């Protein structure tokens, strides 16, 4: 079974683990809280990079920061030559004469969801963005707690996608920053 980069830390926090798609997925007892942190590192993430990246994900109209739902998954445009695909099942298909590299970054990255009514307050303690201008469904690559993260906003929550090696640091830093915000793992 594959383990999230947060496995050891979440285990020390009392998480229970269930199997899902070959991964050990952490679960906590649900509770009402101001901010919830959830480990979504088991979710499939692809990085599509190169001059033909847009063609490979079939979303040539997306501009940086925008997203679109496709059969292959949720497609996020970071740069004109760099896209991410979250979830889904299909594979991006690079076109002839339009080179692009598709890399599965599920293991090399972690995905942490910051959710709940006080998520914006927590995020504003670790990130300098103006969250009022951070539209639903948009992606920004920015500094979060002094690490580079791809931040995707949906349903009011923030998905932080960054290096797996930094996941435990980031989780702990978020937890400390939210110490007075009724933060709880989910």
């Amino acid at each position, binding site marked *: 079974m*594959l*383990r999230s*980069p947060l496995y*050891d830390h979440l285990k020390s926090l009392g998480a229970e683990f269930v199997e899902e798609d070959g991964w050990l997925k952490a679960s906590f007892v649900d509770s009402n809280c101001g901010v919830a942190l959830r480990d979504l590192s088991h979710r499939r993430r692809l*990085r599509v*990079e*190169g001059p033909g990246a847009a063609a490979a994900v079939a979303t040539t109209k997306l501009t940086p920061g925008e997203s679109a739902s496709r059969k292959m998954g949720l497609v996020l445009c970071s740069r004109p030559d760099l896209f991410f695909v979250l979830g889904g099942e299909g594979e991006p298909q690079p076109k002839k004469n339009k*080179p*692009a*590299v598709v*890399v*599965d*970054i599920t*293991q*090399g*990255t972690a995905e942490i969801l910051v959710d709940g009514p006080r998520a914006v*307050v927590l995020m*504003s*303690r*670790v*990130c*300098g*963005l*103006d*969250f*009022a*201008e951070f539209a639903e469904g948009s992606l920004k690559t920015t500094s979060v*707690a*002094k*690490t580079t993260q791809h931040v995707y906003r949906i349903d009011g929550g923030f998905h932080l996608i960054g*290096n*797996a*090696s*930094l996941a*435990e*640091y*980031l989780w702990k*830093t978020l937890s*400390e*920053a939210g*110490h007075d915000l009724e933060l709880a793992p989910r």
Partner: protein
Amino acid sequence: MAERLPPDKGEVIDRQRRFNFSFDGRPVRAQVGDTIASALAASGRSTFSRSFKYHRPRGLLCCSGHCPNCLVQVGDEPNVRACRRPAEPGLAVTSQNVWPTLDFDLMALLSLGAAFMPVGFYYKTFIRPPSLWPLYELVIRQLAGLGKVHLDSRAGLHFKQYLHYDVVVVGAGPAGIEAALAAAERELRVALFEEEPQVGGHLRYTDPGEELEELKQRLAGPAIDIYTDTTVLGRWEENWLSAVRENCLYKIRAGAVVVASGAIEQPFLFENNDLPGIMLAQAVQRLMTLYGVRPGRQAVVVTCNDAGWKAALQLKERGVEVVAVADQRTQTNCREAGLLRESGVQVLMQHSPLAAVGAKRVTDLMLRPHDGGAAVKLACDLVVMAGGFLPRSGLVSQGGGKLYYHEDQGEFLPGQVPAGTYVCGRVAGVHQLGAQKAQGRWAGQAACAYLGTGQAPTPFEAPVEEARGPLEQLPDVKNLFVCLCEDVTVKDIEDAVAEGYRSIELLKRYSTISMGPCQGRMCSMHSLRLCGRFTERTPGEVGTTTNRPPMVPVKLGVLAGQNMEPVRYTPIHHWHVARGARMMTAGLWMRPEHYGDPQAEVRAVRSGVGLIDLSTLGKFELQGSGVPDFLEKVYVNRWQKLEVGRVRYGLMTNDEGVVLDDGVSARLEDESYLMTTTSSGSDGIYNNLQWWLQSGWGEGVILVNRTEDFGAMNLAGPKSRHVLGRLTEADLSAEAFPYMHLREMELAGVSCRVLRIGFTGELSYEIHCPRAAALHLWQELLKAGEEDEIAVFGVEAQRVMRLEKGHLIVGQDTDATSDPLSAGMQWLVKLEKEDFLGRWALDRISTQGVRSRLVGYVMNESTVVPFEGEQVVRDGNTVGWVTSSRYSPTLEKSIGMCWVPADCAGPGSQITILTRDRERLAEVVELPFFDPEGHRLKC
């Protein structure tokens, strides 16, 4: 002397809920809602602190967090303003800077030597003889400073928070509230910052009636983010503000700023003007209205504006006997003056305070008529001063605004203000309530218009104000304190000016006036007026000192914020920790330094087999037809003919020929390559490569950073082939899988890339596997090596072995001036290549010859192991330095690498290393120290 008054509107205390805290070990009764100061005042305390220099008793003066008079120690936190800190049950409050007690402070005897401590005396006194400085320092350290820092105190949690608003309003008085409301009505994002616990500004204690309630009710309507107990600290470019609330530092980006920060009431100058019982009008208003504390029984009010009359009427209405009101002006038409006259209060127009009388508290006040008549002596236990206002214009100045001196009002007011900044209320010199509100509304609308929302309002015309500063007709006495923080007197200012310190900036630095805890809030107006008087200039000509952030003292912990030092963990990190590895940082990575005995780890690898976690290595994939050309450009050696499945060592330099990084690259497929870099250089090299790709070298190349996608480990030692063979059916023989080759194979069910390379000089396999499988593979390898007594080894053992093998570490053996020709890597540099980064510089160095070289050495005494960084000396001069130094358990010698002049770099040369202050001999030797033919590596 003081006591609680009957309940009245505006109170913030809960009279039903009481508790105790301690002050200097004695219990103090407090009501919920009290500050430490209000509770102490209610308990009858007059003296709250001692002055910094002469240890004169000091009582409450401003009650609003500006003056230094109520600084106390709360637990382990020094310099807490008692008038701002809420009292809490069980709080241990102590006085500061006293010995032995606050009420009986023997250090007050210092005042007897005042004649020997004139302004600037420390600059002149403590410089000779120099031999006595240690004694001076000892005494100064004993006497100076306020409060005690407990070195074992815990810092606690601090954090920073970013805020973004269209309009930020600083100050929630009547003007600020109106400004916020006006901006919010236009549906902009508005924040209102107020340093007090509640909104309302001066209305809270001067007139807590319908006007205040109406403002509060209106404020509850629109969406305005209100930050109370929050002090705006400063302002920088582009409307970037900072504010502090408890342990949080806010960093605020504002579209427009409305400064409604109010004004600070000023004291008068007269003899003994620092005695307990002498308070500002706003202080007695706060004590009575907010906390129901009677500030005294017999009050004399001295004023130069209508604010003093208002305070006098409030005193009378709350049952304090108002002995007299002395006004410096010739007349006043304010309503309160009429009521007080009618009630029989003695009114003394054109009178100024001359001297206060008393020891531990004021007992009498001498008043001087302006017509030269006899002084009037009035018995009192409370002197109330309304000496004009100091507009809090710091945020305007910090934003680039200019102040001008308003002669009639005696105030420095904002003149030219920065774009997007609007000023209203008392800070703008507007003291009438109606005008304050109207100006606030104008400011809010103007801020919106600046942001493109709504029409710009018509310019605001301020009404003629009566408020103005005090007349300066000073008696020639000694105890006439201008600066309460540093005990600077009028005489000190005069002497400093006489010594040539005529500029207000120099005067400030020489006399230390306005440099204490109040930061000029109680003394800056007086000091510049006095500077003007002694230099025969107007206050406007003297000007103000530069206003800098922070506006109030801030704890260092708040500025530091939350500890955010990113650390990176490998997928095997927790295994290392669980096995007792001593972890070390390598860049941001945490790596095992060793597992208890690094020398034993070396021996285990040399004689058997060992396993090290290398997940931190940079790992890039390059794809496309242009990769060979790109590699030729970024490496100093050749790449065009690298065959599929082969691995080659590469070295990168920058334009100046300086070594940037090294590593191996392998050809995976025809148009697919794997590049590895050093762990700490990974991010920098990725950025560097991206820069070149996007600057014209990117045709046919796609670079993908796979560092995080793969874990990596190295199985090293003569038995490594044997151990690895237990996990795969692949042919691992030297013929089938030779040195410097790569193979893809399945190990323990995990698809891996295996490179036959190693840093240790032993038969080695560098294994790259998917990150999530790294721990599994690590454990399987250990299991497979159990029979061969496999050992895990850390960075320290690896460093020893690589030194034995003569491999350099970029960044340790090289620095920002090291080129590969000097570093002994000339065999790698292919100057005949068409072009590569650093070629021109290396060509020049090759022609001119190198001046120093990186060489290996063996210490003559094997027990002496120099520290890395120690010097290589010749004839008493430093000529080089040690870059790597270890005791080699394999060779049983002390070996190392060092930079030396080229003329003594030949093998056999004797060099001298200065280690632990002794010169020790070493011999330069050929590298590597161990297995020079590479038999073990290639077997």
